[in-house]
């Protein structure tokens, strides 16, 4: 699927978004998470919580999310969880919206961009918060 061009997705939402919205792979609680953050999109009230299990040497062994969120935000959170799993803390922190959009195979309109970026900023907060101690 990563080989498909954006134009392959029809209508407002790409097939990847539809699919990840209907069947997110990483939605749910993550017991034992040691890097957790939650934030809200002030424009709509959407809320996303990212939970990471970070191994002592700094590798993210698992990531999950919970959220009251729209299709774009949910799909984005799911992709973010996908992308960070197995990565180092530094690699995860370097993740950027273009990486997420590449997987989503979607053009996101300006007003929905925050739907796509909220999971990333929650990720950054989670990494930040856990980096301190």
């Amino acid at each position, binding site marked *: 699927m990563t080989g498909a061009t954006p134009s392959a997705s029809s209508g407002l*939402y790409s097939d990847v978004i539809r699919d990840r919205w*209907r069947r997110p792979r990483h939605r749910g609680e993550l017991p034992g998470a040691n890097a957790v953050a939650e934030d809200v999109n002030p*424009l*709509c*009230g*959407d809320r996303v919580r990212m939970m990471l299990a970070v191994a002592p040497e700094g590798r993210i062994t698992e990531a999950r999310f919970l959220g*009251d969120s*729209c299709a774009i*935000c*949910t799909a984005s959170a799911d992709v973010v969880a996908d992308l960070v799993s197995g990565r180092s803390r530094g690699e995860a922190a370097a993740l950027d919206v273009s990486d997420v959009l590449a997987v989503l195979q979607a053009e996101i309109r300006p007003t929905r961009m925050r739907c796509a970026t909220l999971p990333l900023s929650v990720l950054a907060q989670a990494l930040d918060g856990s980096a301190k101690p």
Partner: protein
Amino acid sequence: MRLDELTRSDFPILQRIVNGRPLVYFDSGASSQKPRAVLEAMNRYYERSHANVHRSIHTLGEEATELYELARDAVQRFIGAPSREEVVFTRGTTDGLGLIAETIGRTLRRGDEIVVTELEHHSNLIPWQLVARDRGAVLKAIPIREDGTLDLDAFDRLLTPRTRVVAFAHVSNVVGTINPVIEIVRRARAVNALTVVDGAQAAPHLRLDMSALECDFYVFSAHKMLGPTGIGVLYGRRAVLESLEPGRGGSEMIKEVWIDRAQWNDLPWRFEPGTPPIAEAVGLTAAIEYLEKLGMDRISEHERALTRQTQEGLARIPGVTVYGPPANVERGAVVSFAVEGLHPHDVAALLDEEGIAVRAGHHCAMPLMRRLGVVGTSRATFSVFNSPDEVSLLLTTVAGLRSAL
């Protein structure tokens, strides 16, 4: 002729094509569209008469001042205010509510109580939170019942001799509830509390009469009632306005100034610091004249029919929930709903694909969202130019949505 047939051609924006379809604008509750007459009045003003107001001896200054003050007369008439000095121009509902909260705030003491409701727009909540924090006052909220109406028995229990202010919406911007202003004012009066009514969702749709409502303050925005952005109205009962120190300072609102002190101007200018929104006042006059020409009763009736059609139609669609009072109860020109399995954002985005503009989200009423147990709703709101056919299109489109994502 139906009101939409009569008015559609007055709104240039209705020529817009959105995503290949003619625009269906169901977001007047957020901000209404403007008839040509409003734009023309502002253009004429800028092209012929613009100058600053009040302090000017020259011809343009005189014309601008006269036009600005004529807007005050228009508002006075439109809301049935006893006198023109009771009409203060603000920059919008939020500005007016903030102004009056700060102004009343200066008179509050530690332990005084402010009562709001669970269905307030943030603009009638946050200013009171700030005041309560600054003055050590206590903020309480009247709860709502399942159907989105206020629990007036609970209100009675909240009222105490320390209640100084009761601030509430005339019409809810989410569930459309029309609150019983006269009744609430009566009970607040009994404990000598001031009443502040957020009329943002009422002014565009209901005939207003300050003498009948008897509230102390009534606040609304022009941009939701076919007028321009940038201006609003604060009505205040003269005796109360006179008793208050102005909350905000600047030019225009003073009589004499020394470095260390100032003497306030007369009403209403005492509460209008700085150069006012002059062109916007001219536009507001035109909007009021447009509404008056159509007739507020006729407008209410037209919008109520659309509201009922929407409410009943949506309720018949499987998986759709409609919030607020039942269809047999009068409500404002607003219907909030949810589609099972779809986030409100996605509902709005999918409708936009068909050229239909509705709003989605918390509608600046997060405490109410929490009460309803949702993150947000999708919301259709109506104006004079909306038609039953547009509502039918909304209904069939919503009916097809669950398979869309």
